[in-house]
């Protein structure tokens, strides 16, 4: 089975649609969303409804820290993120709030674990930023392959036979075989707010039979989303970074 994995949609409807269209072309049989459906972006209600629709058709969606904050959880966030959450809250319908509040922190499919942030403490929302934090996640789980989001920059980590962690920056379109005799952790790029210097929406596919992971990019009209952010009166920084991808 080919799983399409997307993360950090952040209320960016155009980016989400671009990824879903690409996943359909790639023949993904199952969709997993690693959380942060809302926050930062201009389309919280329509994106939440779209994701809820996918879940009703069998997709898996996890809770991210922005989703938790949008439904009232206490959160420590920077000013821009907090401002966006304050803007988001009144724009969610009751149905969307219920949907977001009901999302799980983790999900499993066979030997694969999905979680939004550091797997050793999913509700702590810590970032898997480097080999040391990846090691912490890898040692805490039994799964052979763990997928996380939260960081917005694609990265692959692997726990070696000598208990060291190797970091690999994936190349778009090049399948990485995840050999079964070692443990892997893949950090998804972001759909709705990439921070690796490329503004195109980032997503992954994972072939469970071949055990091959591929990172993809789908470009979309990020200038239009940026303009909607400005029109909504959200912080200018959120519009700018969609265009620069940083």
């Amino acid at each position, binding site marked *: 089975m080919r799983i399409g994995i997307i993360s950090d949609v952040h209320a960016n409807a155009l980016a989400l649609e671009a990824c879903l269209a690409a996943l359909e072309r790639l023949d993904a049989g199952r969709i997993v969303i690693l959380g942060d459906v809302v926050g930062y972006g201009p389309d919280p209600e329509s994106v939440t409804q779209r994701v809820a629709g996918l879940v009703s058709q069998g997709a898996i969606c996890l809770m991210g820290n922005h989703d938790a904050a949008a439904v009232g959880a206490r959160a420590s966030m920077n000013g821009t993120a907090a401002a966006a959450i304050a803007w988001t809250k009144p724009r969610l319908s009751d149905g969307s709030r219920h949907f977001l509040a009901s999302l799980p922190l983790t999900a499993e499919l066979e030997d694969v674990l999905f979680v939004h942030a550091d797997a050793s403490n999913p509700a702590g929302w810590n970032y898997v930023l480097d080999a040391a934090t990846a090691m912490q996640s890898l040692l805490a789980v039994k799964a052979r392959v763990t997928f996380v989001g939260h960081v917005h920059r694609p990265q692959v980590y692997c726990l*070696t*036979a*000598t208990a060291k962690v*190797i970091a690999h920056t994936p190349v778009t379109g090049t399948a990485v075989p995840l*050999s*079964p005799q070692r443990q892997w952790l893949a950090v998804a790029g972001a759909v709705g707010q990439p921070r690796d210097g490329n503004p195109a929406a980032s997503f992954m596919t994972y072939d469970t039979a071949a055990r091959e992971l591929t990172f993809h990019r789908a470009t979309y009209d990020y200038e239009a989303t940026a303009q909607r952010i400005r029109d909504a009166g959200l912080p200018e920084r959120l519009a700018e970074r969609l265009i620069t991808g940083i």
Partner: protein
Amino acid sequence: MAKSRLETGAVLDGFTIGQLIHRGGMASLWEVTQADDPTPCLMKIPVLQEGEDPAAIVSFEMEQMIMPRLRGPHVPRHIANGDFAVQPYIVMERLAGETLLPQIDHVPMPAEKVAAIGAGLADAVEALHRQGVIHLDIKPSNIMFRPTGETVLIDYGLAHHRGLPDLLQEEFRLPYGTAPYMAPEQVMGIRSDPRSDIFAIGCLMYFFATGVRPFGDPQKLKGLKQRLWRDPVPPRKLKPDLPPWFQEIVLRCLEVKAGRRYPTPAQLAHDLRNPDQVQLTARAGKLAKDGFFAVLKRKGEPPRSLIDRPPEREAEASDAPIVAAAINLDDMTPDLADKLRRTLLRILERSPDARLAVLNVLKLNRIAMDQTLDEQGNNKHVQRLVELKDWARPMKVAQGRVTFHVLEAFDPAESILDYARVNNVDHIVMGARANSTMRKILGGVSGKVAAEAPCSVTVVRNRDTES
């Protein structure tokens, strides 16, 4: 884990095990066949024992990852991988013949023969680098040949793939490679510089031409590190009849700083195939090792400062194209010539490591016997070469970056295409035929080249002359 107890006649995943061909320290090789295909294949099975160096396992894993992703005549065709949970193996095409290893009984060899081996080897390494793979273990026992002549690189157990996690990267303390051929940066644990393979080709050519290994065969890290500061005896000191061009090429490959070597194997191959065009520097005339104080000074420096950092991005590594300018001297207006030169300069300015090959086709006559000398008794070939150099002179391209070639052929387009194929040319720049009536009747050379070239083609045309 897996057991590597196999015997002739057994069937594994549809492969019938034939004869044991070789049993080595790291792996054994068996001849196998598939039910629906009588073509013999090769099955490589790693030696996995308790307490074995984990590097052997990781290296086999890397080979299983990299081999299925390689294409073309310079690698053995990959057929299947065996699961580590059951029995790890790799099945690949079985190449006829033997490796280059037995040839070491016949060294030293003449420079021309070594240059031919080196050029074929550089072609194979170029093909690998273009697929994002650095071999990192180039040595005679990993080199084979197809009946059609292509050099084939085998054994990808130490290779590095740009798009895949490098499991050997930080795993083990000792550097991986084969002592006589390992580049200085490889000794320092760097596995991501494609130019490490160029160093290994240089070691091999040095050894085959002199009969002596340039850095010996040290078995300890301390001995391996010597090559960072101790330069080898110049080949011509060992074998005075070696030509200066050969020493120039070999010592350039053996530069400690990767940035001073050839930027790509294609450029190395081009020099090996055009010895008369090799730009000779102080390297060519060197007849003694560096002096005591120079070596002492280098030895005192931190090793990291003696080597170059690997290129950070693939784009930097490969931005050393071979550009071929096909110049038709008989049919070129000054305007078009100027425009062609400006186009070439723009390309050369963007890629400081680019090489320019200026070509002219001396058309042979199909019917009459060709005269090498014209009416005045001048050699046509030499005359064309002089004219080509004069044509390129206004560009003021540094010597050593530009070479000139007169190709003698019946079909100009075909000879340009052939040159591009043989020399791994990345970009052909040529003028459109000025006379449009002629073009209609004869068909454009540029049209055929553009349609069939293995690389990019820029056809330069002067708007004013087209009416």
